[in-house]
Structures are given as C-alpha cells and as structure tokens.
C-alpha cells in the first residue's frame, strides 16, 4: 500500500529535531519545509525535511548538498521582475493579479505554485471569500498548465501551524479532493528529488 505523506513546505520556523517530532505528534504533518541556514548540521530527520533556498543564496548551501539534504529552489512571484524563473522549483505567490500571464509563459515546466495561508489569516471576511474563489480558479489553471498547486502554512510562530485536518478543510473548501492533493504533492516532490539526486 502506498503511503501518502502530509506536507507543509513553507514554515518560517527554525529547524530543531524536537520541533519536527512535536509537529508530527500534534499536527500529523509528515514532511516540513524550512528556510535553509548554513549553521544547520546533524539534521536527524533529514528524510522528513526539505530545505528551501532562494536563487540568490544558493551558493550558501556549500557542502550540504553532499550531506544528503534535499533543497528546493524558491522565488517570489513578481510580474515586474526580470528574473527568469524557469529553473525555480517553487514559486511563492503573494499577489495573484496578472498571474495569468505567468501561467502561459512558464506552462509545462512543473513549477510548484505556493500560497501561504498566513498571508490571508487576518483578512476581512469579504477578502477571505474572494481568496477562496481565486484559489478555485488558480487550481484549475495549475492543472491546465501543468503547475503543482501548493498550500503552505507560512508559519512564523507556533500558533500559525496547521494540522493536516485544517489543511484538508481548506482543500475541501477550494473543491480539491484531499487524497488527490496529497498524492499529487508527494509525486511532485519525488520527481523533484529524483531530478535533484541525478
């Protein structure tokens, strides 16, 4: 039987073995993404950890690629930036205006399109309603143009962390089948890993 793992790729917390254990126990999240810091060493749960780094700070990874850590290269979507994001693994979207153009330009490159839930946590009710409606549309576009739709907590403190049940509630509200979402995300990560270790 295939095991589907729950994933939160976008936390802004500082990695510790204890934190990973706690999050697994309390929130039932199997795989966590952390921003990489070059001081991290002896990461115990390396198979459950994904480190994130931006294009500009990739050189800071150093020998850690050889230590067996898995890195995802990320960037923030900015329509007016001239940065070529075709090599980026995961793109963080803050503002969905004009994202349509982006779908057409980078379609088929299997880029992850990530939305942080912490960005919209304190929105007013009308904006939350619009966010859910926008997400439905974006999810459809992601399927059409071969992007991976990703929801992450964006947690910078513990109260912003989400359990798998809350993630599933978000997905259900966006009309995404939860099992399919987790399965697709697992497959996407495995694809990225196999390319990474080539």
């Amino acid at each position, binding site marked *: 039987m295939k095991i589907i793992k729950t994933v939160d790729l976008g936390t802004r917390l500082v990695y510790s073995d204890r*934190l990973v*254990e706690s999050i697994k126990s309390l929130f039932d999240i199997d795989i966590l993404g952390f921003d990489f810091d070059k001081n991290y060493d002896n990461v115990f749960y390396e198979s459950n950890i994904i480190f994130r780094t931006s294009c500009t700070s990739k050189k800071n990874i150093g020998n850690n690629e050889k230590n067996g850590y898995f890195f995802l290269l990320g960037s923030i979507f900015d329509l007016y930036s001239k940065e070529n994001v075709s090599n980026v693994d995961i793109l963080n979207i803050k503002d969905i205006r004009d994202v349509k153009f982006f779908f057409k330009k980078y379609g088929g490159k299997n880029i992850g399109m990530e939305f942080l839930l912490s960005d919209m946590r304190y929105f007013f009710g009308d904006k939350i309603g619009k966010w859910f409606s926008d997400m439905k549309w974006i999810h459809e576009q992601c399927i059409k143009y071969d992007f991976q739709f990703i929801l992450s907590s964006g947690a910078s403190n513990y109260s912003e962390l989400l359990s798998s049940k809350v993630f599933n509630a978000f997905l259900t509200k966006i009309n995404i089948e939860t099992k399919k979402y987790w399965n697709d995300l697992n497959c996407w990560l495995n694809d990225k890993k196999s390319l990474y270790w080539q």
Partner: protein
Amino acid sequence: MTLAKKKFRYICIYLVRHQHEDNDQTLVKFKHNFYSRFAEIFGQIDFYSSNIRFLKINELSPEFVIIKCKLEFVDMLLLSLYFTSSTILILNVSGTIKKMKKRILKIPHYINDGGLPLG
C-alpha cells in the same frame, strides 16, 4: 418513522493565556473573536445551525478547550478557528469525548517539555 441520529465532533484547541489575564478572561475574549469570525465568514445561518458548544471538562488543564459542533460543520469551524486572532493551537478532532480525553492526556508532555515554547 425513525429519526436520524445527529452526529457531532469534538475539537480540542490549546488556548494560550495572555499576560495580565486569567484563563477565564482569555476564554471570553477568544469566544467573542471566534463567534464573530465564524458569522463574518460563513454567515449567521450556518453559525446557528452548527450548534457550537464549549465544554468544560474538569480533569483537563484550563488551557485545553473543547468545542462541540455538528459533524457537517466541522470544516467551517476549523477554518473559523484558524482565522481567529487569538493565539491558539488547533489540536485534535474526535468523534467522542472519551477518545478526545485520551489524546489530550498525551499532549502536555510535548508542549511542556519545550517542544513548543508557547505563551
């Protein structure tokens, strides 16, 4: 004619007490935030249909708050909890209080041992 039995779910949250407030004051503020957020996002009709109740369980530490609601409104309740401005951790969803208690009794070990430095 048989009436279908209503199903409920129990949601456990960990409510972080504010400085200069006791647990009751924090809970009152949280309830106010939570109710208004639920009604704001999902509307008054769903709010009243969800039959939300706060349960007091003596064996548990006051930081653990149990909320009961109708099964079909669990997702709405979880989302409203997430959108509430109070500092909380949404921990468990369970079908019975007995199961919920069992799970909660395992939790303090993780929180108090410095796994999650709260408060």
